[in-house]
């Protein structure tokens, strides 16, 4: 966690490396999916790394994070290892959820990353509830809900923002506006140009509209909002504009997106931007390359370990419905 306004260069390099780890993990997930080793579906966050890393590094370790089905980056930014993530995607016993969750439900509860939720908007009130709990327990924690642009048009968004505002809860609503829902541009179905930020006034909440590919900008905004929240000044809406580099899910090639738009956003890759920022600060390119190498090595080892990991015991299909570990419904 950083609370200083000025980010140290060493820190920025570390963030770069975290983003590189996420990127490599997403690429690995894609490759494994195409190879048939990941079943079901995946929603990759390549392109969104700066949101996760910028935000997570601005939070306390015990703050709560709630993510969507596009949540690999948040799991990793909160401390899940690429191996745990990839093993989960590959239905392995060593996966974060023991193979019972899958890509859409990555969770690292021992780091207070309290889950990835696959029904749009559902986790927003959970984050508000976690924030409420923090207030009642006097713990000083904040809760963060990450969500997509598409989630701003669903009912829970409205209910949650109003409740959180009225109760002045220490919760941050971070919209990763990547301009698209699945295949439909958010602008074509939304009454306002900035789907999250332009709704803030409806709840008398402050909003920040920012470049979600700039890890420093995200970090600064989240740090400020977290401080406000911890001070008892209530929620903030942060809308981070970003772009997903893969399609929506699985094998979607994303053909509905204009080529020029894709090119423009790829040029603004969050890793590229961070590299440039590091260069500006005089960090030698070789240091950044070394970070990249470490990320690559880490993820390569993760892939190998996840592949080698055992499949879940069939008996686990019938565990953990209830808190005592059981699954019976008849007494």
């Amino acid at each position, binding site marked *: 966690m950083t609370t200083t306004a000025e980010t140290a260069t060493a820190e920025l390099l570390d963030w770069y490396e975290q983003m590189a780890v996420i990127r490599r993990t997403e690429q690995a997930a894609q490759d494994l999916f195409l190879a048939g080793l990941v079943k079901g579906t995946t929603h990759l966050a390549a392109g969104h790394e700066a949101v996760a890393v910028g935000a997570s590094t601005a939070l306390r370790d015990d703050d709560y994070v709630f993510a969507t089905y596009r949540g690999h980056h948040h799991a990793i930014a909160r401390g899940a290892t690429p191996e745990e993530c990839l093993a989960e995607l590959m239905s392995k016993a060593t996966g974060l*959820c023991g193979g019972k969750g899958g890509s859409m439900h990555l969770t690292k509860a021992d780091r207070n990353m309290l889950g990835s939720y696959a*029904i749009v908007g559902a986790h927003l009130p*959970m984050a*508000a509830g976690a924030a409420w709990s923090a207030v009642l*327990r006097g713990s000083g924690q904040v809760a963060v809900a990450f969500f997509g642009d598409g989630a701003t048009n669903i009912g829970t968004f409205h209910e949650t923002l109003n409740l959180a505002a*009225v109760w002045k809860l220490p919760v941050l609503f971070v919209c990763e506006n990547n301009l698209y829902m699945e295949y439909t541009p958010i602008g074509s179905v939304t009454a306002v140009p900035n789907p999250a930020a332009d709704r803030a006034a409806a709840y008398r909440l402050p909003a920040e509209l920012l470049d979600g590919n700039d890890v420093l900008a995200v970090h600064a905004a989240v740090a400020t909002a977290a401080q406000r929240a911890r001070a008892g000044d209530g929620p903030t809406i942060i809308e981070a504009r970003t772009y997903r580099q893969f399609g929506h899910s699985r094998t979607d090639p994303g053909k509905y997106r204009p080529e020029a738009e894709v090119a423009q956003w790829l040029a603004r890759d969050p890793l590229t931007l961070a590299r440039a920022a590091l260069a500006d600060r005089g960090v030698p390119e070789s240091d950044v390359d070394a970070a990249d190498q470490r990320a690559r090595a880490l993820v390569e080892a993760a892939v190998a370990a996840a592949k080698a990991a055992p499949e879940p015991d069939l008996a686990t299909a019938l565990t953990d419905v209830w808190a005592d570990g059981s699954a019976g419904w*008849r007494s």
Partner: protein
Amino acid sequence: MAELTTYRESVAEGIAREMRRDPAVVCLGEDIGAAGGVFKTTVGLYEEFGPVRIRDTPISEQAIVGAAMGAAMTGLRPVAEIMFSDFLACCWDHVANEIPKVRYMTGGQVTVPLVIRTANGGGLGFGAQHSQAVENWAFAVPGLKVVAPATPSDVVGLMAAAIRSDDPVVFFEHKGLFASKGPPAPPEHLVPLGQAACLRTGTDVTLVALAATVPTALAAAERLTAEGVSAEVLDLRCLVPLDMRAVLESVARTSRLVVVEENPYQGGWGGTVASIVADEGFELLDAPIRRVAAACVPLPFADRLEDAVLPTVDTVAGAVRALAAY
């Protein structure tokens, strides 16, 4: 004997006992605070526990239940009120898809110790959207404990078990029973989840009932005594865990089963009870299994129409009589 108390008062009493015991218990819902709840089931809680632990909400069922979930995952034991059980439909995603699944789908990483309390059932002329018995909705979702008490002391005892449960519980309070009276719960009263109560022993037919159908079944059994039919009455108390052992043991004695449900026949919980008996208890049966349930229509407003579609003492007695004569 001690003075009688109402089912309604027992709700507040049950919550208050747990709130005194455990500071992590908090309540949220619409008009539950100073107003004491629209059914007066939270009277006194605001005065005793104050606005921090007894929290009025906007009309935002998803936010209520979703926030309860987030709070439950992080150290509180929220008791969320959904005013009428029909409105569970307004937060059904959280009730059916989030709360009961999150523990399983995270491989056991989190627990969700919360209670959703809600006023359930018909018979009061509230019409199609405020009268449904929807315990069968919750029953269809693995991962929820489902409780539906029939007496004041069970309200207290099951509320204690529900709030102490580390699992999510949907707690159905029956609107038609709020005014009913019974002996108050003794101190420290706790009724474990999943234990049916045998309220009346009998030899000819087993009647399985829940919540408001319990007094209906008891009245029918009473009426049939005069005709020489001896009916046993089981109050399931919970749908999950479902005490099928008690049902099967009773049917082993009586060889006949009538299930009395308030929900519509189609998709009612009695179908599951009946199907288990038709499978595991097939050899015990000397007669068809009969379900007395509501007609498969939305609930009408006019009381005579409502009476015509809900299970009554007459229809239950008729079903028992027919089976006994089989």
